């Protein structure tokens, strides 16, 4: 019974460590983030859920790694206007395709769903008002982290 209690404490500790994303909050950083150039578009990636905190797959845009799906974390990339495929891989690949215009800002939320062995992280395009609201308490993790 004692062993079970220790295991539970260890498990909770493991989860909390996973949640402890460092870096400035979006609210603290937003005034320092430069506006997107008119010839580029910006994609914000963020993850609000701490469920499955240990699962932090790489986020790829058109096959190129740009960051990680860190719980309570966010990062952004500026890209030339065009079509993009965003992919996260756990035990399966999950893809999102989107268009990006010059000067446009888009928000991609990194959600988690049930999997067989591990949870699946999947990218979802969300409305501007939803993205701007939900990203507020996320912490900047930088690109390629």
């Amino acid at each position: 019974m004692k062993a079970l209690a220790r295991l539970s404490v260890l498990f909770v500790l493991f989860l909390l460590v996973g949640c402890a994303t460092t870096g400035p909050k979006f609210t603290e950083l937003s005034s320092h983030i430069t506006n997107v150039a008119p010839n580029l578009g910006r994609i914000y990636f963020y993850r609000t859920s701490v469920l499955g905190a240990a699962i932090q797959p790489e986020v790829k845009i058109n096959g190129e790694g740009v960051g990680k799906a860190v719980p309570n974390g966010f990062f952004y990339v500026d890209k030339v206007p065009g079509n993009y495929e965003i992919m996260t891989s756990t035990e399966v690949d999950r893809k999102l395709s989107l268009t990006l215009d010059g000067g446009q800002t888009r928000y991609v939320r990194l959600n988690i769903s049930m999997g067989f062995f591990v949870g699946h992280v999947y990218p979802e395009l969300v409305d501007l008002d939803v993205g701007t609201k939900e990203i507020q308490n996320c912490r900047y993790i930088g690109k390629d982290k």
Partner: protein
Amino acid sequence: MKNKTWIIPMFCLFLLLNACAFDIVRVKQIPVSLESSHNPKSSLELQEEATVRMESGYSRTLKAKTRWEYVGKISNGDVFKTKDQVLTVEASNIYEAYIVISSEKLVGFYLPIEKSFSPLSEPKVLNMMMIEREQ
């Protein structure tokens, strides 16, 4: 002990089948060619919210008062896009989508990146207002 040797291959097969099941939901897509319009003739404003259910089991809501700009034509109807809301078609993967209107009904979605048409099993009448472009 010997009698139970079948358990391992059966377990492996079970795992394989489960792994396959994750990718089983796909969006029905028909390749189409979009005749783009650089001189949009009109746009639409949706007067009432409309919710449609897709074959994949997911539903999508087109919000009231959203404005949809004409972007071109495919064989299935006129294609309109909006900046007022995000519209995607979802199954195992998610695709950004535009609406396709024919005879004042939403007949499906145009997927601009995949260049394909995803039909609705039941076209839905939309309460919309045409907005003529000012010259």
